[in-house]
């Protein structure tokens, strides 16, 4: 069973990292280590499932090691980056 994320999860993760929506689907910003991050998040309803290939790219672009790392970040609300 692959790690599954919803559009709402991705928006939450992006906001926690300090990213903002700056165009229709582009989110970008600088994380606390000063690294510029940019990714694409569909403006779907929050419950819509994100395709696995898309989640992998979003994880890479938000500087996570892999989907597991991004999943841990989502679940651990105290974790900072």
């Amino acid at each position, binding site marked *: 069973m*692959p790690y599954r994320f919803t559009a709402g999860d991705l928006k939450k993760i992006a906001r926690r990292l300090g990213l903002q929506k700056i*165009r*229709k689907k582009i989110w970008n910003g600088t994380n606390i280590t000063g690294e510029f991050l940019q990714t*694409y998040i569909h403006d779907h309803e929050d419950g819509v499932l994100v395709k696995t*290939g*898309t989640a*992998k790219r979003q994880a890479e672009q938000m500087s996570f090691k892999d989907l597991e790392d991004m999943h841990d970040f989502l679940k651990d609300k105290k974790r900072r980056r």
Partner: protein
Amino acid sequence: MDAIFKEKSISATKQEFPSVFRQAIKGFEIITVNKKSNSKETVSIISTKHLEGMIGRAYKFNPVVEADEEGLGYTVALDEVMVFGDGDTLEEAIYDLADNLLEYTILYFEKPDFYMQIENRKGHYPYLRRIAGCTDKDEVLGVILECRTDLLQGILKK
């Protein structure tokens, strides 16, 4: 050995601009330097047609198609510029990719000085310059899929 390209000062370039322009059209590259500044930075004046021809031959996209692991659709990515798109069908994913690529191109050329400072994004310039030269979405699709004619044919048939 003498330098192959000779540098011209800004004032000489300004004075001779009609001739500089004609030379550039013929294929010459005119390098301009600010002799009053300590900076050794230069600017090249070359024909747009020549520039677009060079980047068109050298910078091609290799789209990567990935099916969702549970059959929910497709993601198509251009790793050269860190852009992807998705959809329930391959066709939708490719159109989404084209939209995202256009959005990124607009953003990049609004702030080229900013993006050129970011190590993993400065190399996107020539790829996005190709997209910036397109006049409609079909042309963008042609550029994205030029190495994947199978996908392009599939879209054109519809």
